């Protein structure tokens, strides 16, 4: 009660600070969106509103949006297939090699994407079919996003109650695959969804690596964005930002709703809450 009353006293000040900070951060986005909707940004809103730029962006770069979404989803799929088993192995293993592997796995997050990309090109750039394919970018994205999936899920797998769940399933006669798919993965489902969300978001916004790895036929949304900023008028670049929002936000909201639903139906083990 005491803190609530104190909170009330502070409210006007807090509110003012919150509004100021929010405006400061949201304003650039609003300006950018407005720019994408005005006929001539240098003359301001007086020049009238239009969807012309959006249509132009869609005609020129529409394909990048779907490619980015597909790429991000592919990243999530690879993250699930490779990252989840890997997370289990790392959570269970006490060996030094496992800890070392964990460090190495995280390196691509710290190393600038450009450097990782260059390394990929040097190593595999000669394999033509691979270099020019969508898979080449996918590999780059997986290298960059996998640690986020592995870290999130392995923290969940490392909980004491997960060890007990595994032992309980073993005592009931379940094989490893029965336990892994039927008990362990469902028990960490909320963490897997959180990891997937992170992987999706990181992949959709990834620019560094992709900029180095892309070919004219494998451009993603952020790369197209950079291209339009560099070579088109400011209104088109801004309209592109708007397109980005329109494509990505509904997907993110959908995924978050899914995450909440899974969280609700897969409440964590009561024993773990001590």
């Amino acid at each position, binding site marked *: 009660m005491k803190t609530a009353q104190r909170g009330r006293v502070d409210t006007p000040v807090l509110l003012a600070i919150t509004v100021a900070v929010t405006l400061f951060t949201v304003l650039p986005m609003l300006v950018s969106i407005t720019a994408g909707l005005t006929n001539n940004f240098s003359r301001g809103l007086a020049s009238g509103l239009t969807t012309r730029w959006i249509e132009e962006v869609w005609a020129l770069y529409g394909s990048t949006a779907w490619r980015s979404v597909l790429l991000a989803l592919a990243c999530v799929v690879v993250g699930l297939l490779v990252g989840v088993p890997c997370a289990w192995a790392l959570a269970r293993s006490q060996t030094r090699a496992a800890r070392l592997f964990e460090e190495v796995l995280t390196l691509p997050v710290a190393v600038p994407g450009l450097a990782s990309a260059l390394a990929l090109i040097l190593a595999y750039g000669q394999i033509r079919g691979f270099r020019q394919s969508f898979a080449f970018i996918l590999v780059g994205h997986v290298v960059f996003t996998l640690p986020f999936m592995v870290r999130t899920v392995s923290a969940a797998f490392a909980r004491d*109650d997960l060890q*007990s*769940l595994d*032992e*309980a*399933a*073993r*005592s*009931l*006669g*379940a*094989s490893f695959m*029965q336990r892994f798919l*039927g*008990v362990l993965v*469902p*028990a960490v*489902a909320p963490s897997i969804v959180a990891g997937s969300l992170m992987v999706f978001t990181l992949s959709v916004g990834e620019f560094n690596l992709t900029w180095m790895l892309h070919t004219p036929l494998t451009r993603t949304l952020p790369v197209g964005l950079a291209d339009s900023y560099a070579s088109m008028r400011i209104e088109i670049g801004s309209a592109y930002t708007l397109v980005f929002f329109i494509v990505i936000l509904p997907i993110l909201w959908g995924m978050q709703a899914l995450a909440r639903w899974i969280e609700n*139906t*897969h*409440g*964590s*083990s*009561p*024993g*773990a809450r*001590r």
Partner: protein
Amino acid sequence: MDHPQALAAERTRVEIVDCAKTYPGGAQVLRPTTLTVEPGEVLALLGPSGCGKTTLLRVIAGLIDPDRGGRIVFNGDDVTSRPIEQRAVGMVFQHYALFPQMTVEANIGYGLRVRGIAPDRIRQRVGEVIELVRLGGLEQRRPAQLSGGQRQRVALARAVAVQPRVLLLDEPLTALDAKLKEALRDELAQLLRDLHITAVHVTHDQNEALAISDRLAVMQAGRIVQVGRGEDLYRQPGHPFVAEFLGRVNRLRVDAQGGLPLGGVKLHCPAALAIGDTVLLRPEDVQVYTGAMPAQPVHRAGWGQARVLQRTFLGDRVHLRLSVAGQADAIVSDQSRDCPAAAGDMVYIKIDPSRLMAAALKDSA
């Protein structure tokens, strides 16, 4: 299959033969241990934390391999080399380890499902077990929606649904609060009797062990100190550790001649007990008389005198701390809640020498 007895597949004799456990660092958490659990018997492994009781339970379960030479035998069938998946043991974990995303029904049926048993058969068996543990109406709940006691019953039902050869319980009541614990203790004891299943039950709580088990194996520092019926161990412990672990004790000083000075009188202490210079006595075995004791000479009746240092009312009983001439430490005594003695009062005390217990082992004297 309408009687709970039929829920246990067979009554298994569990033989633990020369099982020890040494960890790579060299620490031997379990000394070579040999113990037999009779068919249908409920045996408690009782001891303080770190005494090796959980290790022994996990060796029986197949979660830990014993050191070379150790064997686990179920009804003559050596299961030592089999992993837990193939041992047909039922296990109840300390925090129950219920599968959080599954309903009560799905949790209980899990062991049957992974065995590939027909859905009809599973439904029937799950129904029987649910009735046995009185969880009717909660079939569709998830573990998070259950009380602590209900979770414990689900864990038990899940473990017995597969008709295990032996039931292993790892501190099954520790996760519950004190009041609930007492109620569920009696309930669990009854359920285990109804099941007629061989069970090994790990606990650090002597009341739990006494209430639930037919026999107790008291463990200390990686070895079993004594095995026996709870009542026998309580009354006639063969080891001072057992005496102290199973209940509270007074340590009384004995003189070189085997005499026990007790507030003006001297009791003769049985020679077998007077090892070293102390003997043990339970607080409920110190009789206290608060009235005046006219006419009768105190020493003749064997009553000594004591002064009450502290009186603590505990609801169901009164706990007294007594200062007794000839004894350096205060003697504690439990009396009925009606005991009128107050701090500072002089009272008479009496001890039955047959209730004294040895404070040391003979060979270590």
